[in-house]
């Protein structure tokens, strides 16, 4: 199901990078249009779970491209513009989450699910930290605002979604992959 080297970048990565990006764009747009109710300024984006799942399943290149392009697509669909640093932050989120892909052998196994979720949360932390800190140079906000106004809500919301939805996606994927035979 998962024989691959971490940094391979061939047809499979191109296609799944594009699919991941398109899905991330669609789900981001759906959440932008119909935001999920949450506490404070924390927002939940189920799209993030899809990104983490694609990264864990197909590797860091897929994560990077799906995150970068997907966030650009979501913003484009919502009409918000093009913010390269947030797109790159989302890309980094996928890239870090994808570093675990080569070690995932069974998408149903509890250990592999925990690994994927753990790396996913690490990816969320790195990606959102990058985007929040870049906002200091772009927007001239101070470190406190970057950490508590941007990073913390984005990290919490995305981490919660990752913990809840990534295991569900992995188990569903295991069934599909075993039926497909590859």
């Amino acid at each position: 199901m998962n024989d691959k080297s971490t940094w391979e970048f061939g047809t499979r990565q191109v296609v799944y990078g594009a699919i991941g990006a398109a899905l991330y764009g669609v789900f981001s747009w759906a959440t932008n249009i119909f935001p999920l109710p949450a506490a404070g300024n924390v927002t939940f984006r189920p799209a993030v779970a899809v990104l983490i799942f694609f990264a864990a399943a197909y590797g860091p290149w897929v994560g990077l491209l799906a995150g970068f392009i997907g966030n650009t697509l979501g913003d484009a669909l919502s009409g918000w513009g093009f913010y390269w640093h947030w797109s790159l932050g989302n890309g980094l989120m996928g890239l870090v989450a994808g570093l675990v892909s080569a070690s995932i052998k069974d998408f149903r196994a509890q250990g592999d699910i925990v690994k994927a979720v753990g790396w996913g949360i690490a990816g969320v932390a790195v990606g959102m930290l990058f985007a929040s800190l870049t906002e200091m140079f772009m927007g001239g906000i101070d470190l406190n605002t970057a950490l508590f106004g941007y990073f913390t809500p984005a990290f919490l919301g995305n981490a919660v979604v990752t913990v809840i939805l990534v295991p569900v996606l992995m188990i569903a994927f295991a069934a599909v992959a075993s039926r497909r035979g590859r």
Partner: protein
Amino acid sequence: MLVTWKYRLRDTFIQRLDPRTRLIFLFSIIFALTIPEIWDLRIILPIFAISLTLYLMARIEWKDVKRGWAFILVFLIFIVGINGVLSGRGGPSSVTNIESPILFYVPILTSFGWDVPITVSKLWFAISQILRMLTMAILAIPIPYTMDPNIYGTAFKRMGASDNVSFTMDLAFRFLPTFARDFTITVDAQRARGYEMESLKGGLFERIRRLSPLIIPVVMQSTVTGEEVIDAMDLRAFGTNKRTWIKTLTYAPRDYFMLGLGAAIFITCCVLKWGLGIGGFFVPDFFTALLVGS
């Protein structure tokens, strides 16, 4: 709900520009303001005027863009503006270091003796910060409305991205309407089975978990589609040679003008700041006089 691109063909100067020109110009402005750390409104305002002119030249209808504007203005005023007025931090240290008349205090934790002084300097900083961000944002906002989605891949390829990366981008834009349609069909199908999207009940975890019936079918179907696309591409020997691209991009004189303008703005900002020491934060006398009298 219908997923549609915001892009419409309009016969405008902006849309006649090469997409590479627009992206490079956007980055020129971002770098011109951020790398030499320009906080002087005498420099920011002319650049803002250029950005605003380009935005107006895009002739985007207000009804299309009002949602995006609402988001950006709320963000700028309530997060950036209020933070700037209260803390004065985030920009150069001179905002809080220089002697500046106190206009009033904001009582935040009065019982602990912590009232935040609002100074003329902080107020001017907040205005500078909002305008500085707006200058960059109004160049970014029109992109989805005025740049053909089919051209992104070609544009990135011509800007030096690899075939694989550019093709991923191109493919993503093509996949998107299909997956958006799949998502809409899935939502309709689940609603027909009694799924209530508008009133997800339960606690936080439960509400998120209940999104699974909408997400899983679309994602799993897409992985199956992916295998078919990989087979089709492998059969056509994708990746064995350099690709050719159907769409070609060529710079016109107007593109060279805009690229030159972007470069000139960037170089001018660098020279002003590093060569002449102009461009840092300062509060003009007229503003202080306006607020506290001379």
